[in-house]
């Protein structure tokens, strides 16, 4: 058997950090070529560490990684983007952390998903550029689609009848919108108003930039957020820690992201 190379390079976004021992940390990275992986950075919590700062959660970095017997080891790390505006704004930081946790939960190790890395970078760039945190709805819809849980939005998830433009049930167990006739067969879920239905469809087919330009009003965003949270919980069979944090942040007194004067979708 040919000897495999002992190091490799990757570019990725740090999703999370776990401290071990006195000065080491394990980082979970979602990368372009490797997908999700864990690696340890030795001595990274010491002030003099050369990698400290290049290995912060929500940082996009390039890595040189040495293969280890149980765990790979960061040999070098260099920041590509530190998303300063995101980490210095509580609403945006909480939203970015939520997206990072979603990526972590929806992926398996070393199994890169086509399109997911660019979706993650897209959302971080959008937040960095000052887009409203409602772009998280776009991220949720797209992530579900990329992960094989594409929501049925144009036709009934149960009988495939094309759906009319009306209030419609979004059913987590059916995997999408459900027509009036099938409603009794679908367990749980939430009835969405017609505007929310349109936003969902738009999130599925529009570009991130186009969706970000919508700037959803808070009520519409809350309607979609609650419904999509049900779908995500049903899919992952667990609650997300970042969801609780987002709720804590929403309970704080202002300044909340300014609602747009007009959040209508056509």
């Amino acid at each position, binding site marked *: 058997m040919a000897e495999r190379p002992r190091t490799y390079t990757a570019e990725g976004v740090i999703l999370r950090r776990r401290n071990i*021992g006195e000065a080491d940390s394990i980082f979970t990275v979602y990368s372009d070529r490797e997908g999700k992986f864990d690696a340890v950075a030795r001595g990274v919590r010491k002030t003099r560490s050369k990698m400290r*700062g290049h290995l912060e959660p929500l*940082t996009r970095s390039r890595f040189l990684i040495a293969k280890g017997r149980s765990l790979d080891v960061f040999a070098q790390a260099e920041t590509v983007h530190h998303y*300063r505006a995101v*980490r210095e704004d509580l609403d945006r*930081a909480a939203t970015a952390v939520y997206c990072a946790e979603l990526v972590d939960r929806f992926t398996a190790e070393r199994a890169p998903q086509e399109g997911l890395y660019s979706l993650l970078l897209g959302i971080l760039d959008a937040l960095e550029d000052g887009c409203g945190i409602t772009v998280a709805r776009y991220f949720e819809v797209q992530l579900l689609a990329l992960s094989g849980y594409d929501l049925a939005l144009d036709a009934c998830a149960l009988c495939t009848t094309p759906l009319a433009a009306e209030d419609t049930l979004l059913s987590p167990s059916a995997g999408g919108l459900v027509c009036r006739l099938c409603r009794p067969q679908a367990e749980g879920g939430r009835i969405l108003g017609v505007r929310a239905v349109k936003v969902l469809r738009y999130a599925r087919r529009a570009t991130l930039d186009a969706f970000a330009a919508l700037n959803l009003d808070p009520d519409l965003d809350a309607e979609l957020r609650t419904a999509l949270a049900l779908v995500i919980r049903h899919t992952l069979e667990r609650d997300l*820690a970042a969801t609780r*944090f987002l709720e804590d942040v929403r309970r*704080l007194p202002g300044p909340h992201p300014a609602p747009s004067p007009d959040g209508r979708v056509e």
Partner: protein
Amino acid sequence: MAEGAGTPEPIARLIEAFHRLPGIGPKSAQRLAYHILRVPPQEAEALASAIRDVKERIRFCSICLNITDTDPCAYCTDSRRDPSAICVVEQALDITAVERAGGFRGRYHVLHGVLNPIDGVGPEDLHIKELVTRLADGEVKEVIMATNSSLEGEATAMYIHRLVGPLGVKVTRLARGLPSGADLEYTDDLTLSRAFEGRQEI
């Protein structure tokens, strides 16, 4: 760990106890245990009682949550310290660092942790409520956030800023710059750009 069946049970237990301490590997744990075995009885007894005292006599200050053997702690009762400024730190050890540096003569507040949205450490897991209580009578004019410049430390500082800002208290953040001895070549852009903003005339 590979303690042979021949190791007497009390020694195996001591090795196991040392091994659980941070930064102590199996080899060091073994060395420490056999060292204890060799020292005079009164030295071993002093260590044992120091450990017991720390658990029995040390508690949290009811005002600032610092670890202390008197309640309130020495910082909270020292009348020469300025009661209008509170420096908020992640852990009690950070007070020692601020005191060693000198220059701050106000009071402290220890959060005993930092918000960690990914690991599910929320505001209710930290001693934030106690901080808000301390601000109620209007005596405190400034809250200085001395949390780390990590994502979690920043989030904690911003969270507290948003929470107590409306109470009319000024919330400030320690300047973030280059650690002394830092090598520019290896400094990340974020630290460097913040250090530039905090530059001073020489």
